[in-house]
């Protein structure tokens, strides 16, 4: 399958390497060329230098044929905007967004976006490890903890 990953930080580089080694056609969009060192050599990913908010860059990355798009830069708003561009303007069937702020993630989940909140996953796993609960499905962790509701 063809996937486009926006952001080559820790998450994006790891995701790109894992999917490429499983035979997927991976294109990574990254603004900062020095971030690409995280991929090492022989990473098997296609690289486009630029911003995933830029129409020309998305087209260069083959967004029209992509089966999935991952927005994993460190900017929540950048990720949310890119996700909406590819979903609404390019009809990418599967869109996954990294959103660090759990409240913002919840708001966009309600709009139908699949948002992953790393801190909520980590805290949930750590809680269950500490209290010696059996680990649960990701959907049990990737939600707004009720203690944070406003």
């Amino acid at each position, binding site marked *: 399958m063809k996937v486009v990953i926006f952001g080559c930080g820790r998450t994006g580089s790891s995701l790109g390497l894992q999917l490429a080694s499983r035979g997927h056609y991976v294109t990574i969009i990254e603004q900062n060329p020095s971030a690409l060192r995280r991929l090492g050599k022989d990473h098997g990913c296609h690289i486009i230098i630029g911003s995933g*908010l*830029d*129409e020309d860059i998305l087209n260069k990355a083959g967004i029209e044929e992509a089966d999935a798009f991952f927005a994993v830069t460190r*900017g*929540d*708003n*950048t990720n*949310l*905007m890119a996700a*909406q*561009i590819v979903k*609404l*303007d390019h009809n990418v069937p599967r869109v996954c967004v990294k959103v660090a*702020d759990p*409240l*913002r993630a919840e*708001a966009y989940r*309600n*709009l139908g976006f699949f948002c992953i909140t790393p801190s909520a996953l980590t805290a949930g796993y750590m809680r269950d490890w500490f209290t010696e609960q059996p680990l649960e499905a990701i959907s049990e962790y990737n939600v707004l903890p009720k203690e944070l509701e*406003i």
Partner: protein
Amino acid sequence: MYSILVGGGNVGLALAKRLLGNNYEILLLEKDPVQAERLAALIGESNVAVGDGCEMLVQKEIGFGRADVVIAVTGEDEDNLVVCQMAKVVWNVDRVLARVNDPAHESIFTRIGIDDTVSATGIIYSLLEQQIMSDTVLPVGALGRGNIEVMEIKLSNRSPAVNKRVRELRLPLQTNIVWVIRGDQGISVDGDTELLAGDMVVALVPRDGAEELRDALVPQKP
């Protein structure tokens, strides 16, 4: 009417001053504490708050829920987009307005329901375009197997036809001004119609009359 402005740069500050000058209740939100302090000294402490306008806790604290208008004027389109979108879907704010820095982004704002956007680049471009396009005779169509042309001319304030009645113009033979577009109104034309600067004049001209039409409507080059 309570307006929240997100982004205390030059645009946010200028806008805040204008609104305060007209006695509107406003709050200018700025992420950077140092800049916020500067703003407070200029427009009053009670009109400025420190915080990230994309954070829901901040939005709650400063009263997105009772805002009549939320205006996002940071330099980052993604921040303006998220602020306005959350104002609409989380807080049901009636009117949201976003500054769009890159005109290529305007369509995504519209697609997600942020109808009011302001793009400085877009405004400057359209003003520039109007300047360039004024006093230019543009063929917009042909009739009678190409023997009659439909021409369009936007009159600048230097046009010799401005403030004259149509019958006073020296138009080529068999030429008719058929329509004037003034603002967004179309006006049907007779000999008594007075032409104004900014009018878009639509004329039917025989094929060899375009030059003469230009002389009648377009200022001579100095």
